[in-house]
């Protein structure tokens, strides 16, 4: 549907998701700049994070590529955090983003001035390459 920027990272110093049979498609797509959610072929329910079943009707869900856009549903500004890789980025916004497609997605907005963030702010996804097969989605304000 649309591919978004993927920023190469020299040395990834943060925790990484562990890929498994169900989630690897999600993380690999992110490595290529695409944000996936799931949609149920049986009942139409859309969900994030990806699972082996539709949370609504228990059928086997299918992948749905999103436009990578949404609005800030709620957020916080992390001002104290003990993990070194995050400490150097303080303060930063951690947010729940409501996708245009419906589901809420968890993420963060490193490097964005917290004073410019508010509930309802339109945001779009970009990615950082965490490893050869894993991209991590991040969010930043839509530039109009």
């Amino acid at each position, binding site marked *: 549907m649309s591919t978004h920027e993927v920023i190469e990272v020299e040395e990834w110093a943060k925790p*990484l998701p*562990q890929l498994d049979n169900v989630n690897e498609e999600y993380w690999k797509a992110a490595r290529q700049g695409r944000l996936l959610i799931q949609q149920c072929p049986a009942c139409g329910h859309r969900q994030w994070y990806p699972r082996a079943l539709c949370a609504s009707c228990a059928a086997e869900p299918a992948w749905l590529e999103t436009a990578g856009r949404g609005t800030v549903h*709620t957020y*916080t500004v992390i001002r104290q955090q003990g*993990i070194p890789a995050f400490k150097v980025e303080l303060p930063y916004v951690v947010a*729940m983003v409501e996708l245009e497609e419906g589901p809420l997605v968890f993420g963060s907005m490193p490097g964005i001035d917290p004073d410019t963030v508010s509930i309802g702010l339109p945001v779009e996804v970009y990615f950082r390459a965490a490893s050869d097969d894993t991209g991590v989605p991040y969010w930043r304000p839509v530039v109009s």
Partner: protein
Amino acid sequence: MDRTPVIVGIGMSDYPKVPHMDGVQHHVLAARRAIEDAGIDKSEIDGYVGAGGGGGMMVDDAVTMAEYLRINHRYIDGTMTGGSSFEFHVQHLAAAIRDGACDTALVTYGSNQLSKMGRSLGTGGMHRGVQTVAGPMGYEAPYGNSLVGSYAMHAKRHMHEYGTTSEQLAEIAVGVREYASLNPNAIYQDLITVDDVVNSRMIADPLHMLDCCAITDGGGAFIMTTAERAKDLQQPPVYVLGAAGGQTHWNICQQTDFTTSAGALAGPIAFERAGVTHDDVDMLMFYDSFTITCLILLESLGFVPKGEGGPFVAEGNLKRGGKWPLNTDGGGLSSCHPGMRGIFLIIEAVRQLRGQAGVVQVPDCEVAIAAGSGGWLSCIGVAILGREHP
């Protein structure tokens, strides 16, 4: 044979800071005190319930603790829903005792969180560096959220939808601190004002340092049995009138409504079972991991309509002498919070219902509610307790 479930023994370990004690020793000291308080013989105990979550020299899950305490039980429950585990335990034990699965059960908890980990629980992070994180946590771990941040996202959304203010939330911390000032064991005893709270350092917007609970060492235990057995025990029995629990998510990334909790599911069931109304309740023991936790419990359990919690709290209704005094032991905010505080909600409610709460005694306390929040407002357990036989 009257198998109505009752609480007949309570005990707390030492707190707030006990550097020479391991988490398991907190379990043990609390258990010994609960057994002494009940005045029963240890050999009578035929049920053991615990959530783990502490430990130290060894894991403290239910089977290990049952062995260590040498309780050769015929009923065990290791339900672990975070800080609300013990309200779920009351729910489960009430059914087990009515059913005859056991007659007399011991519930214990202990942790040396402060001595072992310092105050890192809220902002230290669970995943320390470059490592892979399996399962749902993998969707959060790359982002550097904190435990405080997860609750802060609730507060932010609640403020957005209902106009709740930091000053209103601060009233909760101020009221609980007044009770802590009357508890010589509380970790923080100096009185504070709303200004102190809103001017304290921001940890995760909009939660300030004084919106956040303390970190301490500590442990607790209680004993449940039948009303029949309680007749010739030394303490007045406290009756389990109604208990219920519910879950909406576990990890914060799966919360879908940041203004409420599973209390909206569990609350009505607990009240229906108890056969009491909100106006019958004389005091509240709410899990106060953060000020916002209490506000959301207050609303989702139906004490006030959704969105009206802020002004209600600002009127002083939860303070000493108010309509519903909150956390008369000084709460997790100011007294004792080793990580999973739910057991202390039960213990303090029992103390109040027995009329043994000393200077913080709520007059004519007949019905009390203990409402635990586990995880990130994820699992809510509710126990309504009373001093009269239902």
